[in-house]
């Protein structure tokens, strides 16, 4: 019928415009980066079989900078002091064995700078973490140890705090680089909240050290899941240099499971309405389907015998 032809023309031109403005233009603006599934193909496989007991002995050296809560080893310094020395607060290592790729971790322990892809930033100054494993065997032993102490279940929140939280704030989740914002109450007479101000002062100092170390303040990730595509985020975390050449962000070395937990956290915080949206959508569409059918019946009854 004539009206269907007209509709086809309208739909055609609309789709052409949409294609040009969205998928096509965006493909021109953002080059395609291949996703490698967290295989870390540039790193040679480690064939040595790790001994967790030997690894435990070696791991004692880590306690100089890192806490390992799973092994009841506390942090040697508070986060702000640590950041003054190292630029950032060294992470707690309890989750390293579960969330990091084993091959990555072994290489990182042997040569942190190159494995983390930050050699371009540390040409004239030493990387805060020195190599901790001299050969493949000791690296494998350490990895085996970390695997043995890692908890079985990790929440998305814990994964984020371990992998990203020392550099990236998440204000919507009340997460700062030095920990969760404490619950405080202002003095109702002076209206000033001393505890909060103390915390903010510590955070300011930490951020200052972080900026000096990184060159730029790592962005708050509260809503990054809406600000970047899923494709961008996973290729970026897998290989920051591929998406943002020259960036100070290190390759963190997450394995697939680790990344999925981190991404889940990003979605929880950045797109909290997603479950509701997916629940309500089908009902609204179903409603309008029925509405259109009823409208069609009314329309047909009104126009019967008129043409």
């Amino acid at each position, binding site marked *: 019928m004539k009206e269907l032809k007209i509709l086809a023309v309208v739909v055609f031109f609309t789709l052409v415009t949409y294609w040009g403005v969205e998928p096509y233009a965006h493909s021109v603006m953002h080059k395609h980066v291949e996703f490698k599934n967290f295989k870390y193909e540039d790193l040679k496989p480690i064939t040595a079989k790790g001994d967790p007991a030997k690894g435990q002995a070696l791991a004692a050296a880590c306690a100089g900078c890192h806490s390992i809560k799973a092994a009841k080893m506390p942090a040697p310094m508070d986060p702000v002091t640590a950041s003054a020395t190292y630029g950032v607060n060294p992470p707690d290592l309890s989750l390293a064995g579960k969330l990091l790729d084993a091959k990555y971790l072994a290489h990182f322990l042997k040569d942190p700078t190159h494995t983390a892809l930050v050699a371009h930033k540390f040409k004239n100054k030493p990387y805060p973490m020195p190599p901790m494993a001299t050969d493949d065997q000791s690296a494998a032993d350490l990895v085996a140890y970390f695997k043995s102490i890692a908890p079985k279940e990790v929440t998305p929140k814990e994964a984020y705090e371990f992998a990203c939280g020392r550099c990236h704030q998440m204000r919507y989740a009340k997460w700062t680089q030095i920990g969760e914002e404490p619950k405080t*109450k202002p003095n*109702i007479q002076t209206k000033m909240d001393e505890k909060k101000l103390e915390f903010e002062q510590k955070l300011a100092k930490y951020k200052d050290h972080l900026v000096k170390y990184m060159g730029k303040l790592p962005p708050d990730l509260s809503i990054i899941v809406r600000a970047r595509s899923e494709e961008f985020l996973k290729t970026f975390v897998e290989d920051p240099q591929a998406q943002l050449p020259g960036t100070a962000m290190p390759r963190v070395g997450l394995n697939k499971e680790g990344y999925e937990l981190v991404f889940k956290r990003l979605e929880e915080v950045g797109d909290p309405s997603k479950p509701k949206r997916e629940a309500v959508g089908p009902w609204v569409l179903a*409603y309008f389907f*029925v*509405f259109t059918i*009823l*409208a069609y*019946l*009314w329309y047909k*009854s*009104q126009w*019967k015998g008129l043409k």
Partner: protein
Amino acid sequence: MSDRRDFFGKALGAFAGLGALGALYAAKRTWDPLPSVKAAGYTTIDLSQAQENVLYTEMWRGKPIFVLKVPKKDKKAYDDPRLIKVGGEKFFIAIGLCTHLGCIPAYYPDQYKFICACHGGQFNAAGEVLKAPPPSPLVIPPFKVEGKKVVLGETSPEYEKLKEAGLVS
């Protein structure tokens, strides 16, 4: 024939009304207090340093809260069953808004009473009405005693008992 047209028109109208109800429900939910507002509804008050007959004012859910370690000299108030026992002492804790029209009454320690500047209402040191126009005593909020601290906003058996006895307001 026009009946058929009318029927479909009415059916559509009714279905549209259903949709409007759905939209109204969503609108109602938009007006609801935010979760962060509801979560901020708990305040902890530390009573360990409280001095007798000195009025402390706290804030809870945006409202002023009177905290008074009731003086033993004021026998009538001290024996009032609506007082709250915290760490062996007796405290008067209530929302500091006059039950007449909501002004904040001032405490006069030498007279052991609250006097409201707006219309002259008076309450004793246990919040009972001494002089009109306030129609009822100062309201006791839900509370929970934890050692020498009190958490406002959380209920407890003691609060429930006072409530059932009609003593909270």
